[in-house]
């Protein structure tokens, strides 16, 4: 259900940028913290994309690891589990530098002329 909501956001964003053309690829960066199950997201994307210009588009997922940086001592690390306290100095002032993404990087669309020819 989580993935279904996210898939709707992905399709809506892609359509908004598609200029009315057929979308063939949607590239998405997904941070580890977003707790997305890739297969589930692909499945939901396929459903939500039906009867839109995104129908049949390939969803390219790039998973982004969780990376953290301590604002007190500057230590940067990639935790194995959800542990957000600095392992070096114990500080709670930690910035997430990667792993929160749910970011559409790019889409690929069929050029209009080709699309017309294909239909014709």
């Amino acid at each position: 259900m989580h993935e279904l909501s996210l898939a709707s956001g992905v399709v809506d964003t892609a359509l908004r940028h598609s200029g009315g053309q057929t979308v063939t690829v949607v590239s998405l960066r997904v941070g580890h913290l977003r707790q997305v199950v890739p297969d589930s997201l692909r499945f939901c994307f396929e459903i939500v994309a039906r009867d839109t210009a995104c129908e049949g588009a390939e969803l390219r997922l790039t998973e982004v690891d969780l990376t953290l940086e301590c604002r007190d001592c500057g230590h940067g690390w990639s935790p194995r589990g959800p542990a957000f306290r600095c392992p070096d100095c114990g500080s709670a002032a930690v910035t997430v530098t990667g792993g929160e993404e749910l970011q559409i990087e790019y889409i690929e669309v069929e050029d209009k002329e080709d699309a017309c020819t294909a239909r014709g």
Partner: protein
Amino acid sequence: MHRTRVRIVEDALDANNTIARANRVDFDRHEVTVLNLMSAPGAGKTTLLERALAQPLDGGTRVGVLEGDVQGSLDADRLASLHIPVTQLNTGNGFGGECHLDANMVRSAIDSLPLAEIDLLVIENVGNLVCPAEFRVGEDARAMVCSVTEGEDKPLKYPLMFRACELVLINKIDLLPHLDIDLDKLLNHLDAVNPGVQRILTSAKTGEGVAQLRTWLSELASRRAHQPGVPGGPSNGPTALHPPIF
């Protein structure tokens, strides 16, 4: 076939965030502070609110509740007996019933909210530990209820939710003698996921911690008075959604 690549670099939930900002502008215009209250189903959100809002809050803070549910008005009916404004918002019209409130749903309810008559709006989200954390609705603050019956491991399993909140209410502590749960372990897990997050141990049954929650709610509402540009008009504008997602 020729393909053109269109570079976007945009958060997939930007559309939701844009509407959340619009909600925020409306709340700001009426000087209403908004709390997004989340939890798993059955953690005790409604019962805690019943206890906390049974008497008027200190400082004359006037509270209203927006009750989000997939279906029905059972929770809203319970709260209505407190003689505070309660608005029901059902998500059942979505894909078999949305499992969370999003900004657009809250937007659809704004006209039916008595914003001119309240200082603090508590939005009781749909019970769910995943989706509500993803969707901003225009709130000032987010809090969650985690009951001890859910086990020690929930912060580790749902870090998105536990990190999204600035207050975690550890509820049903009256049941601790009957459970195998190790409370220290739960608190340690919470600290690992969201170091230093404020927490209150509560029992809606015995009333433990409810006074602290009431104080926290009053202080949340009075935060607005200390923000530049407020009161005396709308805030400095919808430039950012705050608090930030993490």
